[in-house]
């Protein structure tokens, strides 16, 4: 399709050139086979030279530059990532440290509070014991005093009973009988 198009153009244009008088024996230049050899030879030389320049020098050079840039960018990105990781790690370490310190502070606070609590408890206990002992002593003393008093009351009662019997009957009663009578009455 494209060929026939080009062909038609060529023929039309060729006719035109011929009508103008034609410089090259009337042939349409692109189809003038007399210059094919020259063009092929120069094309071969030019294209081979271009291919060699491109494949040996130009592409490795430009490709190398592009690769170097790519590597540099990747290296820089990796470096940035590394630094970011490092700063993240530092932040994490700081936070851990902070949490530890907080926990320590709390522990110390708790310990102190417990110690103080224990000390005050112990003091309170000691005081209570002391007070209890004092109370017990006091109670003992009261009991002794009461017992003494009670025994004095018996003696006084016996004496009083003996004196009363002597006054009434004129007889000194037997001490033992008086004592047992007093005891019975104190019991009753």
């Amino acid at each position, binding site marked *: 399709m494209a060929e026939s198009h080009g062909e038609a153009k060529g023929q039309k244009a060729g006719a035109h050139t011929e009508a103008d008088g034609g410089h090259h024996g009337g042939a349409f230049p692109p189809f003038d086979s007399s210059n*094919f*050899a020259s063009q092929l030879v*120069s*094309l071969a030389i030019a294209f081979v030279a271009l291919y060699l320049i491109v494949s040996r020098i130009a592409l490795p050079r430009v490709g190398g530059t592009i690769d170097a840039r790519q590597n540099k960018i990747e290296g820089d990105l990796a470096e940035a990532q590394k630094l970011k990781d490092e700063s993240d790690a530092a932040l994490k370490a700081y936070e851990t440290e902070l949490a530890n310190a907080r926990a320590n502070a709390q522990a110390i606070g708790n310990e102190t509070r417990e110690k103080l609590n224990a000390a005050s408890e112990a003091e309170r206990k000691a005081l209570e014991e002391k007070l209890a002992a004092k109370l017990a002593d006091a109670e003992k003393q009261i009991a002794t005093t009461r017992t003494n008093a009670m025994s004095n009351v018996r003696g006084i009662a016996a004496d009083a009973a003996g004196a009363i019997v002597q006054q009434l009957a004129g007889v000194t009663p037997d001490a033992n009988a008086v004592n047992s009578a007093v005891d019975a009455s104190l019991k009753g």
Partner: protein
Amino acid sequence: MKIDPIHQFNIEPLFTLGHIGNHTIAFTNSSLFMLIAVLLIALLMLASGRELVPGRLQSVAEISYEFVASTIRSTAGSEGMKFFPLIFSLFMFLCVSNLVGVIPYTFTIASHLIVTAALALLVFFTVLIYGLYKNGLKFFSIFVPHGVPIYILPLVMFIEVLSFFLRPVSHSVRLFANMLAGHIALKVFAGFVAMLGFSLGALGWFGGVLPLALTIALYALELLVAFLQAYVFAILTCIYLNDAIHPGH
């Protein structure tokens, strides 16, 4: 003032290089512009810096590199990178020579069928030889598409074989015809401007505005075509090479 839109395609021998058989090998204007294209590419690729942050020239060189490289990777896979120098040379040679060719008074190398045919045949034989070398007879499986009913297979194979051998024709004529037709149209319209201006006086100056506008529009189109045809030639080369690399589709 007469228009001769064909004159721009004339081959003018500048000096004679020698003889092969009964052919005279001359250094022609075509040879000169091939040389210019090679030198421009060499200048672009070699004179550009190697900075980490590229300048303008270096950017152009690197963009061309990556453009061709990504074209190959996307059409022929990473194995196609073996042919990177070839495709890069083809693309840059055609692109630079076509772009130089749209400058007035220059010569367009690709407007000669013999040149585009030589390049297309270079690609054709590269595909054929590499395909046979790499895949042996399995290379011919590109002629046998999968999933075709057996009774129409011979017909399909015939069409496939025919299209394979017609590839260099379409490959070369596409480029040649585009460059030729575009340059002829450009010359014809530009010629109208001068013709009107010289022959009709003040009216002609006024009347020349329309063809001038068309010339400018066509010139812009030709710039696009100059690049696009080089790209099409390169991408077709990649597609053909893909057949040689992966004949099983």
